[in-house]
């Protein structure tokens, strides 16, 4: 099921020989791989393998001891996370990191923060350019809301939404930033099949319609096999496989480390 009508482009992001350790714990050990433009890349591996850490490295939250990251050809070693955001990297989190005190709409609007430039004096007046800007961005966010089918909860504070919807709002916040590269950390954990299907639909649509490049971490092999173009497998900080879903599934090392008994 990996036949692909989309055009997969050149390398968008390359990580090279990344090594990251915390005290005695080696979270990542010389990991290299690349993400190509427009593709959906899945990162899998056992718990504690360093998958989330990898995403944290990519968007600048962790600073690796060794190795380089090149986004669109530009290499960097150290940077603050907001710089990554400005370059067009958006993400969602494993343990939902929504702004709990705000409504769904406001959460998604924060995703557009970088697109809004009016000074706070205009904001204080809420008039003229500031109002115009606000309305324009609101319109964009409404599009995202429609796309994700969460109109009904637009004004609800996110803190009390059920888990699945929170994940969806988080996706919305990332989409609102119109990212070039979207990093998703276990977007479907804690969902039932129906909800996973919805989520897959969103991911595929985003990838199809906007051409957004997506890297996602997921434990549900069904999902990984079905929607990803390529799979990278990490095991205790090392990369043990990298290839098409079918090839990875057949890889003995992967079966031992991760899948256990062969999976349906």
């Amino acid at each position, binding site marked *: *099921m990996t036949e692909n009508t989309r055009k997969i482009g050149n390398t968008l992001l390359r990580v090279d020989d990344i090594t990251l350790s*915390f005290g005695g*714990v080696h979270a990542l050990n010389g990991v290299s791989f690349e993400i190509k433009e427009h593709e959906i890349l899945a990162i*899998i*591996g*056992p*718990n*504690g*393998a360093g998958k*989330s850490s990898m995403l944290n490295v990519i968007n600048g939250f962790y600073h690796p001891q060794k190795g380089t990251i090149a986004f669109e050809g530009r290499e960097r070693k150290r940077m603050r996370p907001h710089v990554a955001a400005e370059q067009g990297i958006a993400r969602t989190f*494993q*343990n939902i990191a929504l702004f709990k005190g705000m409504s769904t709409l406001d959460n998604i609007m924060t995703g557009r923060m970088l697109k809004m430039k009016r000074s706070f004096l205009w904001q204080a007046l809420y008039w003229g350019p500031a109002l115009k800007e606000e309305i324009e961005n609101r319109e964009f966010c409404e599009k995202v809301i429609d796309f994700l089918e969460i109109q009904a909860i637009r004004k609800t504070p996110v803190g*009390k*939404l*059920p*888990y*699945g*919807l929170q994940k969806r709002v988080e996706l919305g916040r990332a989409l609102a930033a119109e990212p070039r590269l979207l990093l998703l950390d*276990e977007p479907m*954990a*804690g*969902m*039932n*099949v*129906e*909800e*996973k*299907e*919805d989520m*897959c*639909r969103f991911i*595929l*649509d985003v990838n199809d319609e906007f051409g957004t490049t997506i890297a996602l971490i997921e*434990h*549900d*092999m*069904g*999902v990984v096999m*079905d*929607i990803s173009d390529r799979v990278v497998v990490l095991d205790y900080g090392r990369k043990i496989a990298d290839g098409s879903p079918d090839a990875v599934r057949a890889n003995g090392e992967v079966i031992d480390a*991760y*899948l*256990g*008994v062969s*999976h*349906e």
Partner: protein
Amino acid sequence: MSDTTTISRGQAAAEDNRPPILRVNNIEVIYDHVILVLKGVSLAVPEGGIVALLGANGAGKTTTLKAVSNLLRAERGDVTKGSIEFEGTSIDRLTPNDLVKRGVIQVMEGRHCFEHLTIEENLLTGAYTRRDGRGEIQKALEMVYEYFPRLKERRTSQAGYTSGGEQQMCAIGRALMSQPKMILLDEPSMGLAPQLVETIFETVKSLNEKEGVSFLLAEQNTNVALRYAKYGYILENGRVVLDGEAEALRQNEDIKEFYLGLSATGRRSYRDVKHYKRRKRWLA
């Protein structure tokens, strides 16, 4: 509405001749005095049974479990109607501490480890209510490490710095430390690697068979849950809409469609769903 005849509605488990260890009678739960979440939920867990509580996000699974373990009050929720019995006596008024002493413990959804304590200290807090001496507790600790070797490796790390899956193992291990008669497991498989999901359910099974621990587990992973559970309840919108033997549920057409992702021709691909949308519910 389902048309499968093997499935009865209501408290089917009562037909079992053993008295249930846990019985929830028609409870209603309100959060913040205004948000009505459970609208009359009844269920029963037979002694030594594994019962699965299934349902979509926000159906009220967590709320049901918290109502049983009496953790609701800490979230400004209230059981306004109905009653809950454990081993035949009402437990509505007991504190969570009393419940743990009686052998009911909950593993909370979303891990909830004690961030600043090390993994081992986390596990030891699970044995807080035990009075049977250091030796026994040490044994229990070894048992947990046997189930989850990864925890042993990370025993001296602060829980806040461990990965999501490690925290999940820690939370489950912590509950095991109290030697419970009944465990309320809230989404144990969330965020765990496939191999580990199997491990955890195998653990559940072996605890159930060897030690006679009863389980009430809320799960999204219907597939696995129904493989290990003996009985299941489907919750939707705060109501039990369907219940029955696990095997029967697995055969139910609707369950297949919505919870197992199976279509007539076998497993549906996630890629296909892109092309059709459908919404069907037992109850609006």
